[in-house]
């Protein structure tokens, strides 16, 4: 399967990656060869094989429903670029 420049631009946008226009062709070709590898794996007969959700053959352990965390807001907010009234501030989101 071959990706073209438009596909790469779209994927980059979804991943919020800034990719230069002149690099798009390069990425298109590299990503396409990854997809070729996937296509090769896809060609294997997997009928009767249960899809793998996790490489470990174990089940999820559950934790009891108890509050174990205390308020560490001041601590966490030391690394935030901007806070006010206990809120994290981020550039305005347009609804």
């Amino acid at each position, binding site marked *: 399967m071959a990706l073209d420049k438009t596909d790469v631009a779209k994927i980059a946008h979804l991943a919020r990656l800034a990719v230069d226009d002149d690099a798009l062709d390069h990425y298109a070709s590299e990503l396409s060869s990854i997809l070729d590898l996937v296509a090769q794996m896809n060609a294997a007969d997997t009928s009767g094989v249960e899809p793998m959700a*996790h490489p470990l053959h174990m089940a*999820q352990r559950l*934790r009891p429903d108890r509050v174990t965390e205390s*308020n560490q807001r001041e601590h966490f907010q030391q690394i935030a670029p901007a806070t*006010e*009234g*206990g809120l*994290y501030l*981020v550039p305005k989101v347009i609804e």
Partner: protein
Amino acid sequence: MQWETVIGLEIHTQLATESKIFSGAATAFGAEPNTQACAVDLGLPGVLPVLNQGAVQRAVRFGRAIGAEIAPRSVFARKNYFYPDLPKGYQISQFELPVVGRGQVEIVLDDGRVKVIGVTRAHLEEDAGKSLHEDFPGSGGGMTGIDLNRAGTPLLEIVSEPDMRSPEEAVAYARKIHQLVRWIGISDGNMQEGSFRVDANISLRPKGQQAFGTRAEIKNINSFRFLQKALEFEIERQTDILEDGGTVVQETRLYDASKDETRSMRSKEEANDYRYFPDPDLLPLELDDAFIDDATHDLPELPDAMRHRFAAQYGLSDYDASLLTASLAMAHYFEAVVDRCGDAKLAANWINGALAAALNKDDRDIAGSQVSAAQLAGLIARIQDDTISGKIAKQVFDAMWAEGADADTVIEARGLKQITDSGAIEAMIDGIIAANPGQLAQYRAGKEKLFGFFVGQVMKQSQGKANPQQVNAILKAKLAGE
């Protein structure tokens, strides 16, 4: 062209756990911003989610309550999108293998019709934080505030089949799910606090056509009234488009209550490309029979079963029975009244009539009733033993509601006891007949309608307290000259 409406709902209900779905932070509503957001909720590097058993148990209870298959194995997936109130850049949800499979609920419509609505699935996921779009002067403006207290709160997303054909059915279904999650104690269902949020998918198709039309999705509706209004608006909007030969665009719309209209959300570009994949931080969730039994062994009798039982056992209509099973507290109230007074129909009439009206007027639910089940049974007992008539009983009820007093206290204090002494009633009637010779003559001449006039006079003089059956019998005899 006749159009048929097709509606399916996705309901997000917050599960009433103490701690979050993947962290040990508290979930209490209304805390100071970000005081209940720990390193896991903030998506800091190096943290791992650990699944909350309480959230899983609640999901299992719901599955059992709708007769669904509980998946012996389900998988958590990452739903990827970028938004500041989702710090990890993905929401942990379930995609291909949800914990609750296909089930169903019954809805009862206002005309008494019962309809089965399919539930496609229900899956566990985490809630996002909250964005506050107000001015933050300290920042120089142009900023959005983020509170991550809600991030990681457990949600059960309940997805219906496209089985509803009108806004009324959609509202009845949403109310049903709301009733059920509170009934089985998995969510407080508080809509003001956002514990119960509805997304509606709605499309139109020519009547008789099998294939669905193009749908619009209306997001984040937080009241049943708005759900009704948003759907009504959307039916009109889509009808206009289709009648004009246009096509409905598949999009997400928001309901604006202040304008009573839906409008297109400035489509978050490519927002629907969520690139789900299994979350490598979480192992598959495997549930055995022991876990399921433990989570469900104390489920109360379910609302549909109880409604059927009320109808059969007490001879009530489906509609009456559905009102009485609106909540577990209401059903318990009804049964407590019946246990004491032994007359289910009378109990149902009083609860669905005077009591419901009083609750509605004061905007209370049954837990906040001014008249307890024992008190209402006490009132009904006074009707049954002829101490008061049904009409006076309404007056007594109003006083009980206002004062929180027992029926006997009200009857005593206001002298409302029914007059059943036939001698007293006879004396009263003799006096009235004597005072109205003209009417008596006309009555005896064949104007029988005047019977009502005499009854009215007796009731007036007795202030409504004379026993109506006795009044009728004695009056009839006296007027006939017997």
